[in-house]
């Protein structure tokens, strides 16, 4: 079972297909879950603490806005953990504020720099493209190792 980072990190379709074909999807939910299930001195209702932008320094320079660094504190460890990635390049649902937009750019850049196998594709807009989309994802995932540490 390979760990596959999905972009958009909240994608229902990618998360389902990766799990359906026997691998582990790495998305935003895993990072968020880890934070909201950790007790501590926090200021609810926020799940992001002032510590996050400091952790994000590993992935973005100090002059990068704290909003980007805070988000990268969630996504950065997942990208490091990933053994493969699937990127949907025309995901308009990933639209957001400037912090989200810049973080998205940095996520895609980091994935491309990491050297892991990457599948890039676009969302389907008809049934024929739907077949091609699912077939491409399945073919990509079938090529990844199924066993822990195996090839």
């Amino acid at each position, binding site marked *: 079972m390979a760990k596959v980072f999905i972009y958009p990190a909240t994608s*229902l379709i990618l998360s389902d297909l990766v799990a359906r074909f026997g691998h582990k*999807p790495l998305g935003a939910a895993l990072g968020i879950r880890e934070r909201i299930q950790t007790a501590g001195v*926090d200021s609810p209702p926020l799940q992001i603490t002032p510590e996050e932008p400091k952790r994000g320094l590993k992935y973005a320079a100090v002059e990068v806005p704290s909003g980007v660094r805070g988000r990268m504190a969630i996504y950065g460890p997942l990208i490091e953990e990933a053994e493969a990635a699937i990127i949907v390049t025309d995901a308009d649902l990933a639209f957001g504020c400037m912090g989200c937009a810049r973080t998205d750019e940095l996520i895609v850049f980091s994935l491309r720099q990491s050297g892991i196998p990457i599948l890039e594709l676009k969302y389907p807009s008809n049934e024929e493209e739907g*077949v091609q989309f699912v077939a491409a994802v399945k073919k990509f995932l079938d090529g990844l190792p199924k066993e822990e540490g195996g090839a």
Partner: protein
Amino acid sequence: MAEYIPDYVGTVTKYVFVESPSMTAGELALRAYEASEGVLIKETCFGLQVTGEPESVDRLIEEIRAFDPTHIFVKDRGFPPGDPRRCRANLGGARPGYLGHEREFRLLRYISRGLEELDRREEGDAEPAPPARGKRPLLDIKRLQELIDIEES
């Protein structure tokens, strides 16, 4: 600053979406309750949220998927159900993240079609040849003249 004591520690929460011509979210919920065995199930307009120990949730998800494999979709959720930071009962308006789901929900029928087609190909053990898209034979000039003559006569 206040002490933060999290709920549902050690559990996982997953969304289950159903986009099926033969099953509604209500029917899915009824059948999921029958197989829940201690997993917390919350019915929603698009399907369910299930919360529980990771092994129990995985088992339930496996059973739920079997109801309609190509029309039921699952994804992880970071927050537990009813969390005041996300629940629209506290916030008003759509829950953060709902609009993204709504956008992808419209594409699920294409994904379902793709899954059905792949299943069909695997059952046949051979990939069916794509529909022929070769060039149509050109109209012969003599045949064209005949057609013109017939039309004019």
